[in-house]
């Protein structure tokens, strides 16, 4: 009986608070009948948003940071080791597939059956995705917002999400964090001319020979802070030869591949590379989401700090553990124990 009673009071209080804030916010909403999304499309603001369908992983993560309770499910179910760093009831929500230009795994009828009030898509805003978004809206009559996931678009995207889902305060706080992080980090290195910044090679794949070319979203984190050795050619992901890496002779190697990071110091072919000789091959943390690359969403913001500290240790004296704890609390809504921070920073699965 006592337990029942307690639960009731807590629920009541929460409902009251929610109701209060909703009534305070309502007038502001009522005016914003529509917003302009990242692609310049006009999206009607739904009267009430309780269920949001994420079109892909970046959207799921970004919505989770603002309003985890609204997330219908994940494009791909989270693994247990990933769930550990997310809210227990939200991290374990079901797999709902994705609707992106790269092939749908979600059936539109399934999407409709889930009765979302809004479909959120974050990533590229090119013509392919615009036409896809328009078509989905036409077929389902569900508002579909397409937002920019690149670093300079994240803050604006947060504010748009805040308006769309009726949670402007948390969205504004995260938008500010984003702006401040990017401003602080780029501001501190602004005095270093481009050509004096470290030359970084981004290694993917078990052999470390997949890399992101100039302008690719995969290397956005790296290119914001340093010189991407493969940046001379623009494009997406590509294969390169070891000879080419030897020729580039990068100062630092950033990798997301555990097997490559484990073997590179013992591989004679890589031995002459400056980064390997200086033992500057760094494995990016990836729990619950990657820190430097994929999915290309707000999970990369903490990766900016991580990379900045690796590349310019004297300019960034902040304690990475504190930064990590803050970020995980603000964005993922979890409080990390020391052992968990160790596990995240080790970069292992």
């Amino acid at each position: 009986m006592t337990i029942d009673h307690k639960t009731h009071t807590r629920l009541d209080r929460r409902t009251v608070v929610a109701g209060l804030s909703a009534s305070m916010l309502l007038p502001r909403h009522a005016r914003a009948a529509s917003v302009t999304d990242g692609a310049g499309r006009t999206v009607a603001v739904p009267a009430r948003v309780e269920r949001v369908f994420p079109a892909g992983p970046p959207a799921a993560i970004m919505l989770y940071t603002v309003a985890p309770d609204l997330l219908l499910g994940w494009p791909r179910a989270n693994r247990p080791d990933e769930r550990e760093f997310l809210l227990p009831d939200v991290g374990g929500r079901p797999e709902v597939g994705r609707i992106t230009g790269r092939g749908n795994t979600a059936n539109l009828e399934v999407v409709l059956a889930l009765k979302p009030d809004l479909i959120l898509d974050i990533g590229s805003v090119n013509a392919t995705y615009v036409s896809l978004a328009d078509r989905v809206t036409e077929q389902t009559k569900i508002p579909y917002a397409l937002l920019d996931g690149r670093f300079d678009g994240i803050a604006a995207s947060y504010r748009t999400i805040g308006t769309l889902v009726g949670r402007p305060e948390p969205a504004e706080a995260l938008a500010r964090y984003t702006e401040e992080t990017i401003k602080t980090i780029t501001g501190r290195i602004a005095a270093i001319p481009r050509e004096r910044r470290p030359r970084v090679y981004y290694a993917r794949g078990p052999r470390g020979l997949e890399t992101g070319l100039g302008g690719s979203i995969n290397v956005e984190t790296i290119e914001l802070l340093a010189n991407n050795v493969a940046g001379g050619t623009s494009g997406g992901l590509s294969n390169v030869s070891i000879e080419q890496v030897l020729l580039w002779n990068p100062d630092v190697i950033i990798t997301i591949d555990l097997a490559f990071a484990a073997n590179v110091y013992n591989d004679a072919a890589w031995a002459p590379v400056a980064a390997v000789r200086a033992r500057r091959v760094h494995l990016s943390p990836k729990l619950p989401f990657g820190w430097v690359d994929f999915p290309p969403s707000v999970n990369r913001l903490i990766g900016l700090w991580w990379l900045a500290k690796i590349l310019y240790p004297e300019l960034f004296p902040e304690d990475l553990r504190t930064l990590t704890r803050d970020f995980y609390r603000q964005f993922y809504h979890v409080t990390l124990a020391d052992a968990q921070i160790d596990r995240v920073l080790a970069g292992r699965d």
Partner: protein
Amino acid sequence: MRRSALPGFTIALIVLVAGLVVAFTIGRYPVSLAELLDVLWSRALGRAPSAPAAVENVVLLVRGPRVMAALLVGSALAVAGTAFQGLFRNPLVSPDILGASSGAALGAVIGIFFSLGVFGIELLAFAGGLAAVAAVYVIGSMLRSRDPILVLVLAGVVIGALLGAGVGLVKYLADPYNQLPAMTFWLLGSLAATSVSDLLPLLGPVAIGTVVLVALRWRMNVMSLPDEEARALGVSTGPLRIAIVAAATLVTSASVATSGIIGWIGLVVPHLARALVGPDFPKLLPASALLGGGFLLFIDTLARTAAPVEIPLGILTAVIGTPFFIWLLADMQRSWS
């Protein structure tokens, strides 16, 4: 029809040697001819080279293994193509006709899907190739028909399509940010990641398969006759067919496991070799091996030097192979009509 094969062999050998020289001397990392010879010569004599360590490293650990792999894969695919074209009495056959490439592709994408290491991926690809051809062969021999060869080819086409669907399914389920690009790269074929440790698993099966095919070279001539005539000449076609298919599959699967899917070589090179030395297998097999190795050496050199980024081998072989094949067809028709 009888003519000396000597000029043809000379040309094939020149192509191979030229390919080796070009492949060894050209690369993204600048290595002069003097440095190259210094490194190779010092190694042969067992003393320390005077070239910088980085250059020695490039020659021995980076470019060397890759050149050797290109040579082996090119020869292997050409030899397998020659064997299959003879066995099926059809000039449009390539080494993947019985599903070896599709099986290897499925094995590799599954390996990538489960985030295995390089060796695991290669092993799965190799096993996939062998398993696919074994399945095709079993199905082909279970279906009794007056034309066992035709049934075998049809079974290969059907199983190949099924495996292709399997590849599509795995790609569809794969993580689009990490695994899908890796799968796409693998399916386009590349020798970019070749290291010394890849050479032995490649050399073993290729050597065994090639030795078997060379040992069977005289009987393979008989295989190009209809079954009844072959039997009349005292050659039992059944076991021989199994031996040829097994040897050619071993060679193809090992190559594909190392390099990913590289089309065209197994189709085009045997025709070239036939144009040079004639259709007699004892001559055709070695000529195909020489030409295939030389051809892939040239193509791989282009793949790794034309741009800072690797150009997939599958794309280059198709771009170069298609006009070449059309020219070859036109030329053959002229000489046959």
